[in-house]
């Protein structure tokens, strides 16, 4: 079966031993590019970018806070899409991917809340406020915890993954609420600054925008690398009786299915 046709390639990729090998080959490259772009982004943000006219140097936490916030939303969307594929098409790999997204997403959400809190104390005079953006981001963290908790409460891992996928889909309604909270409500949190659809209209200085985008790239690549690694481990434990797992454990090269083209 020719793998040069995308649907065929994706079908090939859906088989656990094939995905295991593919992910293992891709992951080091993603980590390398993620580290390099993180270094470039942090250098651009912490050293090259000028101080803010209002906040001085304290604004530089933006280069951690905003990419983490973008990732917290992106990972939830990824989890929901993978969960939808798992529920509708019963793809085993999609179940593993969806469940392995959740801890990383929860971590990014936590980092967002903590860095935001550290930024808020000098800027707003308070560690926390119950405005729409912060409250909905906290609800997002609880949703992640709910997915993780529900998945781990089942003995049958596949059934737990399907139940947690449905929960993730139910919670997807929170994503537009988090994103549009600063437009729909009067919030203490800053309004929309970076406009993806029309970057020229963004109200942020270009010297601050490019390190921010590079850090966004770095966090995305880190997440993909982390997801590939976690999915490999998840597949090993899900398929632990199978032949290909035994071959991996014994150190033999994993047999892949389908004719390589």
């Amino acid at each position, binding site marked *: 079966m020719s793998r040069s046709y995308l649907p065929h390639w994706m079908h090939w990729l859906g088989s656990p031993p094939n995905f295991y090998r593919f992910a293992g080959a891709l992951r080091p490259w993603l980590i390398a590019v993620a580290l390099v772009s993180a270094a470039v982004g942090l250098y651009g943000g912490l050293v090259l970018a000028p101080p803010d006219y209002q906040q001085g140097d304290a604004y530089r936490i933006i280069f951690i806070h905003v990419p983490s916030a973008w990732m917290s939303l992106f990972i939830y969307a990824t989890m929901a899409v993978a969960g939808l594929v798992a529920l509708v098409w019963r793809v085993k790999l999609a179940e593993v991917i969806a469940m392995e997204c959740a801890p990383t997403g929860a971590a990014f959400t936590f980092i967002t809340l903590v860095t935001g809190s550290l930024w808020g104390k000098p800027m707003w005079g308070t560690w926390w406020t119950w405005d729409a953006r912060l409250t909905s981001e906290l609800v997002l963290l609880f949703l992640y915890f709910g997915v993780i908790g529900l998945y781990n409460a089942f003995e049958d891992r596949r*059934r737990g993954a399907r139940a947690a996928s449905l929960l993730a889909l139910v919670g997807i309604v929170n994503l537009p609420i988090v994103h549009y909270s600063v437009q729909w409500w009067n919030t203490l949190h800053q309004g929309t600054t970076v406009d993806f659809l029309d970057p020229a209209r963004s109200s942020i200085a270009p010297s601050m925008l490019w390190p921010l985008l590079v850090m966004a790239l770095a966090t995305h690549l880190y997440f993909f690398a982390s997801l590939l690694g976690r999915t490999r481990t998840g597949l090993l434990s899900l398929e632990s009786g199978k032949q290909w797992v035994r071959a991996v454990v014994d150190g033999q090269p994993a047999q892949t299915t389908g004719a390589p083209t």
Partner: protein
Amino acid sequence: MVSAGYRVFILFMASTPYSLFEQRAGQPAPAEHAPGAWRACRALLQRDFVLAWRRRGELFLPLLYAVIVTALFPFALGPDPELLARIAGGVLLVIVVLAMLPALESMFRADLEDGTLEQWLLAPQPLALLALTRVIAHWLTTVLPLIVVMPLLGALLNLPVKVLPVLIVALLLATPLLVLLGSVLSALAAGARRSGILLALMLLPLAVPVVIFAAGAVAAAQSGMPFIAPLMWLAAALILAIVLAPLACAAALRITVEA
């Protein structure tokens, strides 16, 4: 001149499927036809009421819990009547939400364990309809007593009398919404080996906007401002939930029952 409302009514009656009103044609239903959806729902309601009546002592436990927790607040904060009056509305809302949680957890567990849920899946009636019936029965037997007891709890916390009707209306809109959301989550968690606090962890994030709007209405009424807008938001969410939540609950039940 036929009024518009009557025309809508006629159109609605003409478009309802035959199975809902099988007696309309004046003939008895043929023996090999399955009972219509309405009859199935009525039977399910009857079963739930009989089962609830048999353990009617258990239904007092959430009430007792609510009363005791309400009494804890004056002990914790001091009996200053002005302070209690300020916090009464919000505190009573939270107490109702927390008192609903234990009963919500076991909405489907008993039926999952004795195989009734499998029969639901095999039934010719739509699973979403059966789930909605279970939600209605659960609200009537478990939550309505809590709302009936509200005047007593309000008196314990020195709730201003003019706020009480708004609080009751807010609860009448918010609690069915929470039971509908809870039915989806309870269906998901019914197959989990140890639920415990899991349902609370899943439900409370989704309950946050409901509590915000209900408390907003109560707070507005307490300060003499117009309170209809949050109640309208609650009503809109409730209508959406009545339509969509049973479908999600049916999907969740299918996930839970398949071994």
